[in-house]
């Protein structure tokens, strides 16, 4: 086991010592995400598009809508309830705010007024808008309470009115109820930047894994393998060490790329545990593919040519370069036979539909099935001696 770890750490050191590794592992995927991410969105605006559904139709709801419109952080448009849901489903808008009837009565009775804010889980500006609604409601509430109190107690001490207002303010912490779409089949696909980010991360991890698994071929070519086999290192230890190094290298790349897209492109990845499982199974599948290709060829050059051909073509089929919505039905069916499709499915489940571990079981299972096939073929073809 000590030898396996020594092999893994040495391979890690070897890859991260080369400056070109950083370009390939991190520079290229970020660039591709940036380029292709902007391609199919058609000049997306920075401001989120929010629909307001007014079921109250009172002065009070008008005033709230006015407040929201006055704030310049979102585009506000009015629709009825059905249309709003339709538009949200089609991902034409970021979310919608529904104001239920009876706003004034609830406020007067000091109950939580019925305001629902529905948005996709990946919408990062949600909390800001929530706060904005809360603030606007607070203002309205103060106004309402103040005026009613004032009319009831005309001529009374202003001190009393003010005290009342302050106490009302304190008790109105949750002026509205916001609802996240935690799990919804309403949203089908990822927004473009998320999809490209996930896709190109997968693609460049595959390319890196191809290079990494190529070290076995390289070792055979250079005579390093000969020397490895002349040391008292068992085949198990050696294979374990190599697999460990591939897995570690892959995780470092995946993790860093996910963090970069989180902060540079605002991509929301969703449930942490489910992501760990999903990424691990994508990695295993990719390592399997690398070993599979390595088993079919003799030299690292052949492996690079063959492997990259396979990777790029399956990435195109699997929806890495462009959304599958734009391709014909037959291609959509073919896509299901490449691993990348299932990787992206998994990410969509987590990032867009707010899924958890249970929801990615199918993609993870299919990825592991691919892995099993690749590994069985790949490993049996590795020759010792």
């Amino acid at each position, binding site marked *: 086991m000590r030898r396996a770890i*020594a092999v893994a750490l040495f391979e890690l050191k*070897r890859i991260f010592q080369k400056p070109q590794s950083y370009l390939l592992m991190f520079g290229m995927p970020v660039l591709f995400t940036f380029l292709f991410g902007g391609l199919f969105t058609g000049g997306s605006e920075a401001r989120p598009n929010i629909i307001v559904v007014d079921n109250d139709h009172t002065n009070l709801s008008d005033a709230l809508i006015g407040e929201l419109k006055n704030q310049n952080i979102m585009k506000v448009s009015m629709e009825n309830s059905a249309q709003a849901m339709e538009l949200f489903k089609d991902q034409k808008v970021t979310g919608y705010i529904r104001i239920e009837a009876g706003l004034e009565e609830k406020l007067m009775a000091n109950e939580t007024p019925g305001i629902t804010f529905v948005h996709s889980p990946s919408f990062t500006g949600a909390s800001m808008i929530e706060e904005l609604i809360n603030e606007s409601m607070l203002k309205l509430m103060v106004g309402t309470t103040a005026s009613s109190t004032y009319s009831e107690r005309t001529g009374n001490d202003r001190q009393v009115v003010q005290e009342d207002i302050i106490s009302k303010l304190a008790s109105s912490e949750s002026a509205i109820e916001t609802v996240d779409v935690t799990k919804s089949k309403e949203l089908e696909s990822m927004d473009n930047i998320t999809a490209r980010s996930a896709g190109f991360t997968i693609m460049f991890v595959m390319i890196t894994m191809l290079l990494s698994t190529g070290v076995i071929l390289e070792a055979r070519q*250079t005579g390093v393998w000969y020397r490895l086999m002349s040391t008292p290192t068992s085949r198990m230890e050696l294979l374990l060490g190599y697999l460990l190094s591939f897995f570690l290298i892959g995780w470092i790349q995946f993790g860093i790329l996910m963090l970069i897209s989180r902060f540079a492109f605002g991509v929301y990845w969703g449930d942490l545990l489910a992501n760990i499982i999903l990424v691990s199974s994508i990695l295993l599948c990719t390592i399997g593919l690398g070993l599979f290709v390595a088993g079919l060829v003799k030299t690292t050059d052949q492996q690079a040519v063959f492997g990259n051909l396979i990777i790029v073509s399956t990435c195109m089929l699997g929806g890495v370069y462009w959304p599958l919505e734009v391709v014909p039905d037959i291609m959509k069916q073919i896509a299901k036979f490449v691993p990348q499709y299932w990787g992206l499915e998994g990410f969509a489940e987590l990032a867009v539909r707010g899924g958890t571990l249970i929801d990615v079981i199918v993609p993870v299972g299919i990825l592991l099935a691919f892995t099993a096939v690749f590994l069985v073929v790949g490993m049996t073809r590795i020759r010792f001696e």
Partner: protein
Amino acid sequence: MLEVKDLKKSYGKKAVVKNVSFTIEKGESFGLLGPNGAGKSTTISMICGLIPYDHGEVLVSNHSVKKSPMLIKQKIGVVPQEIALYPTMSAKDNLLFWGKMYGLTGSVAKKRAEEVLEFVGLKDRAKDRIETFSGGMKRRINIGAALMHEPELLIMDEPTVGIDPQSRNHILETVKRLNEKGMTIIYTSHYMEEVEYLCNRVGIIDDGEVIALGSQAELCNRLAGGSVIQLIVENKSDEAIDAIKQLENVSQILHTDETNQLEVFVKNPHDRLGEIVSTAVHQGMKIVSVDIKEPNLETLFLQLTGRSLRD
């Protein structure tokens, strides 16, 4: 220390190692001399447990390579014919890595790496990447990597191939020092001088078979004709060759159609030289050069196979 018995290996129908047997005592320095493709590397790979043998047995300290390969690999240090190092890593990193593969712990490996670098004379280049090294320096680290775990038996497969004379001398001296410190050594080469300089016992291998085995003195005594007089002539004639063959003390004449070279095996070459030359001239051959070669491994190989070790 090492016993090799009736070793055989075929690739497909091609028998590469046909019948190789020899034993080596502890502290010995054994040379395996043979031309390209003789089966030296194949024999060595079988001794190290790298490729399985079809027939025979290899015992290292009475342990069978077949039965306990790991135990034996720990005792042996192999210097492969190729440079088996990671070119983008430093000399030190390479040594540390190979040390760990031989089971050394971190601190021991560090200490050994320093010692080995010192020993092969590359301490000042420790942090430089292997790819920046000259051919000779790479060869030295290639040897160093096999010394990390202080093996009982060091097996070197043509460690001086393709390097300049200076590096070569450095390596030969290094090997000599190791042997003097008590390390048992197997040294393969097709350079007779290297084996002559380093090894007390020699096995000559050709076409997968050991054709001569013994100490250098023993082998040279086996040379029936003693020395060789090499004649280079302008016009070779069979009559002339026959005439020389009839002369006293001449045991054998080797020549090929392609070259104008005659190798005359003869005892007391200095006494016989005049007669041989005059006979040749008398028979109408024009002599370009004459060279007397004292009995050595090269002439032995020539006599046994009719070919020279290298072209």
